């Protein structure tokens, strides 16, 4: 069972990540990104299972880099289900999934790379194509008047 402070930490991390107030970096482990503070750290990992479901895990690290606590998206889901009465709530999983994707994009520099590549293509004279209308065959158009 996680505490109110665990939930608060997860929510603050999610907000800080969304606002780019924290700087996620790569870790040596697959699908794991990390934050570093003066004498502590945080790791965010994704574990994928055979049924294609994912669990997101937050680890708290001490000054020696050792794990001192951890909780995951299932713990957060259980907390939100208990506090809201919504037995189907996946608010914790949704929050950590979104945070993980943002952390991944930031740590790998994906957004920066996209902007740079688009700028270079524009410099090379490549035009942004206009969206093409979807061509629907007459016999497939459900709105065609008979």
């Amino acid at each position, binding site marked *: 069972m996680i505490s109110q402070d665990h939930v608060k930490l997860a929510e603050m991390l999610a907000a800080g990540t969304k606002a780019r107030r924290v700087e996620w*970096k*790569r*870790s*040596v*482990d697959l699908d794991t990104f*990390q934050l*570093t*503070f*003066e*004498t*502590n*750290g945080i790791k965010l990992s994704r574990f994928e299972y055979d049924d294609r479901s994912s669990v997101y895990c937050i680890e708290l*690290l001490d*000054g*020696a*880099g*050792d794990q001192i606590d951890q909780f995951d998206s299932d713990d957060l889901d259980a907390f939100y289900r208990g506090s809201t009465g919504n037995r189907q709530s996946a608010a914790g999983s949704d929050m950590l999934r979104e945070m993980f994707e943002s952390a991944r994009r930031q740590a790998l520099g994906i957004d920066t790379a996209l902007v740079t590549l688009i700028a270079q293509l524009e410099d090379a004279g490549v035009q942004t194509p206009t969206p093409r209308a979807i061509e629907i065959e007459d016999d497939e158009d459900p709105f065609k008047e008979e």
Partner: protein
Amino acid sequence: MAVLGLVVGAISLFVGAQQLALTREAVDKTLTAAEAARDATNEMLLRIHALDAIEALTVAIQMMGTNKDFHRLDVWPTMPNRYADIRSKLQIVRDVLVDLPQHDKTIIQQAVQNLRSMEHKIERLLAAGEGISRDETVMLNHTTAEDVDALNELLTQIKLQHGSGSHD
């Protein structure tokens, strides 16, 4: 006779006041000298601490550089102990230079976290009897190189701040 007594008393008082002033001046000088000696000692201690930190950081960076070669040569069984040794050197830097700015402490913490992750990863793979793939080696060396770059910048900064160039 009474006048003579007053004169003698006044002279005695004057001489006493002079002696008191001289004594006070001597005490002040002694205190100033003691304070100067204390300041000099503190400064010397700070300098010794800075030199300790510079030495520990230099060794840590050298060991991390060698780690990249060891990774390429697959010298895995010795690595966990090396990672731990380097972490303890970085801990010395953090313990000794307690007034490091937040950004610099973060650089050290980042390296410590990565070394701990490497230690854990290699221990786990060795215990499972699994090998370390080329991709994983590349990732380990990439992370090590990034940390070495950041720590080298920190080392240069500490040397400049503490006026040392003798521990290269």
